[in-house]
């Protein structure tokens, strides 16, 4: 699949990467239909965010269609159109249950 890959400060290009696979019982694979470019993406692009490594895939504001899910995922179904919040979260702790997931980062 096509990915936008970081190769170093101000160096990004479209590379082919292996198709992702379902690995966890809460996983879903989303086929991205559109994505936005955020000011925070420029922090990554400039290489000023600690931990950025060449080879990492960029992008965090996107929408798409559910392509594949763990068989027991019930909240979404294959074919659903979904919009992805940028917050990285576990989905189970108290802040997540109160829909304030940025606290869990």
């Amino acid at each position, binding site marked *: 699949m*096509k990915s*936008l890959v970081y190769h170093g*400060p*101000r160096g*990004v*290009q*479209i590379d082919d990467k292996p198709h992702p696979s379902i690995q966890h019982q809460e996983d879903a694979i989303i086929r*991205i*239909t*559109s*994505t*936005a*470019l955020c*000011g*925070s*993406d*420029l*922090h990554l*692009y*400039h*290489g*000023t*965010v*600690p931990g950025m490594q060449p080879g990492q895939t960029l992008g965090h504001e996107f929408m798409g269609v559910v392509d594949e899910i763990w068989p027991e995922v019930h909240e979404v179904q294959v074919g659903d159109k979904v*919009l992805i*919040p*940028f*917050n990285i*979260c576990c989905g189970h702790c108290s802040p997540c249950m109160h*829909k*304030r*997931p*940025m*606290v869990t*980062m």
Partner: protein
Amino acid sequence: MSSSLRGAASVFSIDHWPIRLEKTRDLGAETINFDNDDPVDIIKRETSRKGAICFDAVGYEAVGHMAGNASDGTAMNNGEKENHDDSKVGNPAYDPGNPLQVISWMCQVAKRNSYVSIPGVYGSGYDQFPLGVFFNRGLQIHMGQGPVKKYNERLLHLIETGRIDATKIISHTMNLIEAPKAYSMFDKKRRRYKNCIQTMSRM
């Protein structure tokens, strides 16, 4: 857009990039260019000194102290530091070296006992703070990454029913294959691509 939706009688947008001021004017805001006018003075006057509900949507990348590292506040000059004529700024207390300039302006004009919101990004190095003014004016601060999941559904309904048109802030739509070009355009928006506000890619 959100302020109008929440019923604000008037919305002020403070910036010094003409293209962004123009965009917010199109969306219904009154604009203040801080290179020509003093935002503190204008907001005090326009609100009859009652103050406004304020939010800082800039974060650490404001004029004079951008291009630093979000996590430690140091200047690394990796970004594009704006070539800015500090002598033009309308506010007499403007300090180009103060990383909290926006917040210090905000707390002077915030309505007493109101919430001041800071969705703009700051790192842990930004630790100097006008505590006294906040205390005296009884202000409370909400800040951090937006709790997107809390508002997602409500916002989606507003888009579906046509109450807000989120496409108004998209200036460029490109194919995903052109993403490297989109990054470069967005990065160089200060110099060459003056009209690049938000870029979107499609497959």
